[in-house]
């Protein structure tokens, strides 16, 4: 493998890995803040226990998000130094702002939140978790603005004297329409992830507690409580109270957030798609396996063939009308360029070269992204139906199903980012069709002058280390989810004359 390939693999692996944890952090911080607010406002102990329970899972997740994020900050310089020189003037600014504005805020206030349970006044303590939630979302904005510059460079010009991109408007950079579309899409995806996490765990526990309450777990006794509450049933016990008072509201909170985030995802995805047809036609053409330019092409649902070869693609299932709508908001009269035509025109514009992304990956990740989001939709619609009007479902299959859907938004997020990033290939800075045509760079030009062996070393080290950490992360998450929320300690904190810390490592 060449040093470009190894560097691309490393960046791909470390970034996909980082973005396993990031969406959960971005979405869960506001949800935990919401739970704590519910506790402060209503004074109900259940919300306190939920805050603590999901707060602990949040912290386990946050640690790996931070650990994997550090690598990202330095990887540009290590592996993509020519890229860093070319765009540093532009790309560095949002990165530095992210550190200054967002990272300081989230890490400092998370420390205050974790250790401040008995040290800070209740409302100040509540404010700290909200500041964490704002911080994690602000950091997402800055890094997406930076990424959007690579997809659709604006606010900068190419200086032929220095051979570098030069920032001429920070405002244009931060209000790049690509960024303004991508940011809400990513945030909606993150809320979907965290809400599915909360809903999935909430439903699983709700089913579990309600079954325990009805005696023999594993015995006959499915169905919702209200439907089955006959004279033969044991009276609802403590665990049924928990299912009703704690888990059902938590699960429904998650489900409603899924619905809202889902609608936002569809809407922002549509906006983003329309921008992409204009700004990165090659990406969308290959996402549709659209090889030849066409007027009113059909939306491809399934194709077979080796997708890296345009000639062998056979369209199996197609839907008319959808693609023109996705591209321009019309059902007909839309002409789209195909991969082959675009390749010819890029050759004329940018010189000889292969300007096609990997067709197989872009085609399938686009479909995977949309399909995986269906997991969250399933649990939300099913769950809201099963818990309607005070019902507490006790079906064992529902409990398991709700656990099984938890990974789906994670997979959807990864697929979406792989599509976005690999659809940009071979560019690291894709030329803006309406911007400065010299503001462009391929990955071949961007890579550092390191030897393949050096980069292979770091690739192996990071992959192995991250692999181990992923196992530890999964073990801890699973262990803490199964353990469930702690009992509320009865007026602890006083031990003779010495006050114990509310939390200590």
């Amino acid at each position, binding site marked *: 493998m060449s040093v470009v390939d190894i560097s691309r693999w490393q960046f791909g692996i470390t970034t996909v890995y980082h973005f396993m944890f990031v969406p959960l952090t971005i979405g869960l911080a506001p949800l935990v803040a919401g739970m704590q607010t519910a506790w402060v406002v209503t004074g109900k102990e259940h919300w306190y226990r939920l805050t603590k329970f999901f707060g602990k899972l949040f912290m386990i997740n946050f640690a790996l998000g931070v650990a994997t994020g550090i690598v990202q900050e330095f990887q540009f310089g290590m*592996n993509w130094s020519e890229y*860093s020189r070319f765009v540093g003037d532009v790309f560095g600014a949002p990165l*530095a702002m992210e550190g*200054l504005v967002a990272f300081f805020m989230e890490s400092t206030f998370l420390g205050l939140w974790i250790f401040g349970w008995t040290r800070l006044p209740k409302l100040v303590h509540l404010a700290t978790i909200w500041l964490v939630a704002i911080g994690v979302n602000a950091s997402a904005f800055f890094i997406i603005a930076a990424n959007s510059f690579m997809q659709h460079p604006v606010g900068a010009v190419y200086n032929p004297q220095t051979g570098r991109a030069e*920032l001429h408007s920070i405002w244009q950079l931060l209000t790049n329409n690509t960024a303004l579309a991508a940011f809400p899409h990513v945030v909606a995806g993150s809320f979907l992830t965290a809400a599915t996490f909360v809903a999935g765990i909430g439903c699983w526990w709700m089913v579990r507690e309600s079954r325990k309450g009805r005696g023999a777990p594993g015995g006959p006794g499915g169905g919702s409580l209200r439907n089955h509450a006959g004279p033969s049933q044991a009276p609802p016990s403590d665990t049924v109270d928990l299912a009703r008072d704690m888990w059902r509201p938590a699960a429904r909170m998650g489900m409603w957030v899924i619905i809202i985030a889902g609608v936002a995802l569809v809407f922002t995805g549509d906006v983003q798609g329309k921008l992409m047809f204009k700004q990165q036609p090659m990406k969308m053409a290959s996402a549709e396996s659209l090889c030849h330019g066409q007027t009113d092409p059909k939306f491809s649902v399934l194709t077979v063939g080796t997708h890296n070869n345009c000639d062998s693609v056979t369209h199996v299932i197609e839907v008319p009308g959808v693609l023109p709508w996705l591209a321009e908001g019309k059902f007909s009269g839309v002409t789209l360029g195909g991969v082959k035509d675009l390749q010819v025109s890029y050759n004329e514009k940018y010189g000889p070269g292969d300007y096609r992304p990997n067709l197989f990956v872009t085609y399938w990740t686009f479909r995977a992204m949309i399909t995986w989001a269906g997991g969250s939709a399933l649990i939300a619609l099913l769950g809201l139906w099963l818990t309607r009007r005070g019902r507490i479902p006790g079906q064992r299959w529902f409990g398991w199903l709700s656990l099984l859907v938890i990974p789906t938004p994670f997979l959807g997020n990864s697929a979406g980012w792989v599509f976005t990033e690999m659809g940009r290939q071979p560019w690291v800075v894709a030329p803006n069709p309406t911007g400065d045509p010299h503001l462009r760079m391929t990955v071949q030009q961007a890579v550092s002058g390191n030897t393949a062996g050096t980069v292979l070393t770091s690739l192996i080290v990071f992959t192995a280390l991250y692999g181990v950490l992923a196992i530890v992360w999964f073990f801890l998450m699973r262990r803490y989810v199964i353990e469930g929320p702690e009992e509320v300690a009865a007026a602890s904190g006083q031990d003779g004359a010495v006050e114990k810390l*509310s939390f200590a490592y």
Partner: protein
Amino acid sequence: MSLPEFWFLLIGVLFTGYFVLEGFDFGVGMLMPILGRGSETRKRVVLNTIGPVWDGNEVWLITAGGALFAAFPEWYASLFSGFYLALLLILVALIVRIVGIEYRSKIDDPRWRAGCDAAIIFGSWVPALAWGLAFANMVHGVKLNEHRQIGGNLLDLLGPYALLGALTTALLFLLHGAVFIALKTGGEVRESVRRIARIVVVPTVIVVLAFALWTQFAHGKGWTWIPLALAVIGLALAAAATLRGRDGWAFTGTALTVAAAIVLLFGALFPYVLPSSIDPSFGLSVDGRVVDGHRTVSASSTHYTLMVMSWCAVIVTPVVLLYQGWTYWVFRKRLTVEQIPPATGLSLQRSAAG
């Protein structure tokens, strides 16, 4: 002062903040196994002195990295691609340290804790040594060629000056961590850490002095005698205050020494950001000025970018300092073994009864 000079100063400030704050974090990690030997509770006292703040301290590095990228992309690109394996080692150390600190209390099992302790110890010693190595090499000059790439291999980084630099930061952070623990704890932990501080202070004074004088004579300017003097005063203050049990003054002393040492290094570096040992004209400088008759390569961004970043820094940095300072104020009380709550971690496996 020109904008590139201002940003050189600001990056110096960010690294000073990083080393003053993470210096004692590293020291705490290095001292945790020594002070906590035989007592899990003592170990936890030591670790929890940095509990609420270590993550915020570490962000100084991330922000310094981002600021390097924004203000001096050439410096960022050449340095990080050139010090590739050294940086990889630091990154691995920082990753395992984060995970070690955060996950240590999650599982109540001696083997689990031993694994996390190993991660914390590795993650504290390695950066404490490696940062000194990296900064000493930067000041000393590297094999930077006309393509702005650093040649040579890993062994080139291990010259005597660089190794002394590594020893300097490690010892300095060890002492800094010791006086920090003394300031933040009470009772038996404070007693034993003060004993350690009294032992560590002697070799630290010798090594820091040797490294500072070498830096001054090989690369210093007239005015860098001032930070050198301040570093010595800081160490003297730390030594005297440690002997008298004045923890606050001792910490002020080591913090002053760390800050002065970074100022000395950045002062010795200026106006270069990455001098070349092959040809002075290959060297990267803050603004591509003529140094000793050689036209150097400019590392800085454009005026517009630096101005935007200056506004951002001038507005946001005071706010960051304010709330970080407040965090230290909130958790200002001394920790003792009596305050440590019982372990709340789960067992490795779920008990059958649960």
